[in-house]
């Protein structure tokens, strides 16, 4: 290897560090320009990471709320006080986290960091919509979701929709769990249902869930999202999981109807068609 030479042919000693230093002297402006860029980019990355952290915390708390709600056994009535109390502290914590995100998401930054906060928001919507469904047997609306967070926090239609998709998974788990937990719930709820379902061995509340899940499935499937739409990729996957959930509940209900009378206590519906459960 020869030595590097300058243009006159004199040997040249070049260390990369030296060249940078030399440049720094000859053109201070370019470095000051990039220093400015560095500060701007650092600020952006820091803010981005702070939001991601908050989003993860919101996700974790929402998951705990959902777990607690899965211990509820009856729909269309207030959540049992113990669980409600437990969840209220978590909702308060989530509220505080959202409040802390507000200054990071002002104005133009709302959409800039939307992708970072969005997982937390989706999980939160899953939690509040599940809570809402258990209490009222209806779907929470987009406006009601927005009312649960500080007004500066943006809840996009996309997050709302994807949160509802996840709700179907929770409803599935809830329905299957309560089907297997015996008749106590059934007797409680049959009084306010029609004669027809009173005869059905499927507990009315679970029967209601099957009907609601079907209605949601129909609603989801009827949505037409253009191919190039950003929602599209996530949606195809979630649509699949949702369809599986609905079928699972339908099969479980079928199992109760066919084999219900022979069912020993402690029997759980046969779900041997082993399908993936939404794991988020």
């Amino acid at each position: 290897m020869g030595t590097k030479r300058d243009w006159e042919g004199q040997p040249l000693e070049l260390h990369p560090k030296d060249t940078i230093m030399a440049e720094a002297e000859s053109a201070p402006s370019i470095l000051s320009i990039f220093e400015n860029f560095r500060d701007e980019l650092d600020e952006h990355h820091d803010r981005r990471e702070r939001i991601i952290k908050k989003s993860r915390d919101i996700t974790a708390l929402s998951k705990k709320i959902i777990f607690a709600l899965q211990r509820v056994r009856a729909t269309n009535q207030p959540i049992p006080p113990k669980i409600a109390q437990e969840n209220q502290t978590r909702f308060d914590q989530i509220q505080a986290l959202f409040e802390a995100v507000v200054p990071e998401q002002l104005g133009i930054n709302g959409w800039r960091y939307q992708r970072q906060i969005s997982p937390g928001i989706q999980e939160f919507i899953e939690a509040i919509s599940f809570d809402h469904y258990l209490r009222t047997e209806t779907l929470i609306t987009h406006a009601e979701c927005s009312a649960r967070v500080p007004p500066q926090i943006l809840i996009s239609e996309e997050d709302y929709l994807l949160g509802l998709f996840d709700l179907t998974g929770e409803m599935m788990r809830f329905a299957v769990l309560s089907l297997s937990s015996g008749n106590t719930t059934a007797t409680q709820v049959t009084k306010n249902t029609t004669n027809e379902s009173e005869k059905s061995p499927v507990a009315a509340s679970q029967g209601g869930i099957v009907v609601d899940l079907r209605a949601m499935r129909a609603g989801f499937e009827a949505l037409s999202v253009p191919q190039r739409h950003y929602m599209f990729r996530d949606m195809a996957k979630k649509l699949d999981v949702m369809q599986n959930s609905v079928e699972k509940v339908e099969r479980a209900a079928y199992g109760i109807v066919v084999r219900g009378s022979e069912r020993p206590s402690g029997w759980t519906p046969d779900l041997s068609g082993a399908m993936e459960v939404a794991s988020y």
Partner: protein
Amino acid sequence: MIDQRIFENLQAKIDEESTVRDELNEIVRTLARRGRSTQAILSRAHSTPADQLKPVLDDVTKEILAQKEEIARLKAVADQHPFYKYNGLWTRELQNLVASIELCAWLGGLQEHKGPSSTSFMTIDDVGKFLDIPVNLKEQDAFHLTIEDYLLALIAMVEELARLAVNSVTLGDYTRPMQIGIFVKEVFAGFQLLNLKNDILRKRSDGIKYSVKKVEDVVYDLSLRNLIPKGGSSA
């Protein structure tokens, strides 16, 4: 009870957004078409000696000005919507345009738009002023040129210059590789100041060192053979 109106409302929102997207996409497509013709003309620089470059630059300037009009159209529509919701639609084309502007300016075009700064390229403010758009907005939600887009455009320009260094030699121009070498190293030093995270900017800026090496190799070959005109470096 599931209220089907919830789904109807969602559908209405999705449709509304698709309309906005279609409208923006239509403008971006025009911008992209004009961008390709700008780049086609600009690539003639690789086969044109420096002293005959003027007509090429004039043609490029015409195309760039045509693209500038599309940017104005885009701005008018985009300003009505959240910037970061839709900026993915046009960021590529905007970067290409800025790269063309930078290259054209470096080659000696668009001189009247260069700011008084001592840099050999157009700063982000120069570009913003030329295109008549704001830059690096942090609070106001409006169409603008982001730092990321600008930096990515600079990288694209550096890559193009590395190619030009090789082609200049083929054209018998031994001075230009020196100038390119100085400039590319300047930009490289600038990028080394940035703390980049694992994102697109990091990935693309990693490529600059290869561009620097490419140019250095040319300079090395020329100096080894004593082909560099005396005092050529100061030009």
